């Protein structure tokens, strides 16, 4: 990727990293635009975006198959990929700022597992809710449940791992493992209670995939993720201040408690919605912010928007691999992000052990 070009020399960044970050934003926006076109143009079937555009330009009707492949399969999948990728990367950056620690990732610290448990519970137990509630929640039921699931998971994690404004990395990772284990136990319980058709829904959902992208899913996730992405930039100054420590941040005029609460809610909303529509997709939240910090520094004013852009591009790229690797079948995208991301995570972990310890 072109990121390495802007990376500072080991001695320290020579020029103002804000300028580099702004340039990077432009580059990443162009990258995302390119990936989007690529993603629309590329699929298992022979439908060609260019052919379709040519037809439209010439005033010809598209064939029904082309229309379906472009507008009901690839386009919602593209939009969902952008939303989920941006949501996961920004959630990762927010969590890392909140915990003052670059290893926090929604999937690693159990937030995704919490969202997953709640979403699965909604799928299986949702039918037991009063009809009026089901009616009101509609297709949002799973998203709403996932939001509360991830919210509770973050609150628990924060309470366990943060004492007096300081987060212990070891405690955070261990608490994450414990929360994941607990959520997985709950998931097992739900699976046990599920009937055969619900089990099918769970199986598919569990794999982590954008293959089920439909406009209904896009509309269920988009408002929540959009709100979260809108809220994130307002947290930038607060999270920068938090890097100094909670007390010091407060003395620079940052309403620490409010920043923390808003960050937790934002992460819960973004992760919850992303998990609800795409299952468990890991490591985007850790890889993307880390690369960006290497390139242009930890300033959240540029980190958060750039993470959104790069996260979206990365997920589109992973999705394209998932579509063509074993075509006409598909590889679950969660497997691809894990294969790419897990070694990266280990690398960060080892580097941290080497330099400053945990």
């Amino acid at each position: 990727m072109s990121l390495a070009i802007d990376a500072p020399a080991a001695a320290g960044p020579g020029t103002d990293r804000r300028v580099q970050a702004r340039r990077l934003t432009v580059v990443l926006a162009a990258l995302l635009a390119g990936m989007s076109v690529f993603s629309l143009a590329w699929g298992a079937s022979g439908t060609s975006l260019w052919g379709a555009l040519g037809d439209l330009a010439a005033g010809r009707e598209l064939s029904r198959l082309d229309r379906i492949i472009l507008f009901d399969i690839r386009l919602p999948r593209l939009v969902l990929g952008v939303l989920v990728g941006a949501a996961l990367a920004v959630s990762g950056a927010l969590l890392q700022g909140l915990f003052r620690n670059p290893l926090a990732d929604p999937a690693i610290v159990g937030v995704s597992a919490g969202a997953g448990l709640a979403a699965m519970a909604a799928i299986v137990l949702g039918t037991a809710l009063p009809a009026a509630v089901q009616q009101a929640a509609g297709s949002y039921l799973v998203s709403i449940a996932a939001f509360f699931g991830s919210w509770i998971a973050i609150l628990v994690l924060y309470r366990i791992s943060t004492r007096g404004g300081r987060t212990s990395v070891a405690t955070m990772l261990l608490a994450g493992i414990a929360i994941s284990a607990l959520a997985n136990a709950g998931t097992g319980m739900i699976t046990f209670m599920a009937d055969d058709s619900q089990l099918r829904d769970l199986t598919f959902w569990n794999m982590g995939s954008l293959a089920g992208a439909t406009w209904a899913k896009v509309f269920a996730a988009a408002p929540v993720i959009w709100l979260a992405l809108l809220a994130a930039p307002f947290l930038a100054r607060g999270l920068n201040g938090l890097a100094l420590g909670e007390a010091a941040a407060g003395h620079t005029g940052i309403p620490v408690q409010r920043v923390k609460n808003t960050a937790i809610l934002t992460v819960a909303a973004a992760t919850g919605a992303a998990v609800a529509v795409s299952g468990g997709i890991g490591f985007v939240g850790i890889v993307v912010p880390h690369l960006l910090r290497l390139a242009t520094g930890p300033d959240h004013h540029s980190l958060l928007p750039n993470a959104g852009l790069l996260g979206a591009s990365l997920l589109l790229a992973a999705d394209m691999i998932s579509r063509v690797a074993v075509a006409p079948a598909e590889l679950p995208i969660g497997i691809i992000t894990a294969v790419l991301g897990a070694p990266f995570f280990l690398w960060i972990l080892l580097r941290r052990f080497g330099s400053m310890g945990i």
Partner: protein
Amino acid sequence: MSVLSRLYLGLNLVIAAAFAGHMALADPATRIVSVGGSVTEIVYALDQQHRLIARDTTSVFPAEARQLPDIGYQRALAPEGVLSVAPDMILAIEGAGPPETLDVLRAAEVDYISVPEDFSAEGIARKIRTVGAALGRQDAAEALAGQVSAEIAAAQAAAAKAAGGAPRTVLFVLSTQGGRIMAGGADTAADSIIRLAGGANAVTGFAGYKPMGDEAIAQAAPEVILMMDRGGDHGIRTEDLLAIPAIQPTPAAQNGAIVRMNGLHLIGFGPRTASAITELNQALYGGGG
């Protein structure tokens, strides 16, 4: 990238050619995707395999079927993957999905035939008739259904005779992941085939495939343990199975009564069910009856 793009180009050419062929023929479905092991078997039994262009992961019999492109697991079908083989009909066992994919496929005006699943002789006959009707081979299907029903009835009668009114209890073990036994309860294909073959399901407390506790297994005291033979090294070795504490005290373990059969043959509920009944019955009560 270059390998991928060359692949992509090649794929496009193949598909363009396929589309061209498709346009020329029209009407009776000639580009069929078969989803579900038993459905594919029926298509072959009706000698209509030349109309198949792709299959799902579970369609592994007869061996030639494996040559067809694989569109993935029947419950996790990707819409564009399925459409990419340019099908004009999808013959799918009940329960294929996910529903989002089915919606798109229907919208794309691909004929989608859902084949009802029912673990009984009548269910198999209904599957055959459904597939036959979809293929426009009603007469052949009627004949096949009659033949299969008769074979099953004969196999079942022979099996009952072999059992001699004292059915042996059988525990169907789906998997043994981490020493945890997933057993087949009521309303499963395993339950049906055990009863058809003159045995009795050792599990009576629950429906579906569920993890079963050690004591519950000991108490169920199965005389025979039935497993799927997955081939290769996927299946658990007999000595490992016997080492599981829950299995050890059962009469089946003490007598070494472990039966393995090919999964699709055993619980596929396709045209070969009669031979599955006979094979299982012989495994339960000894060859020759």
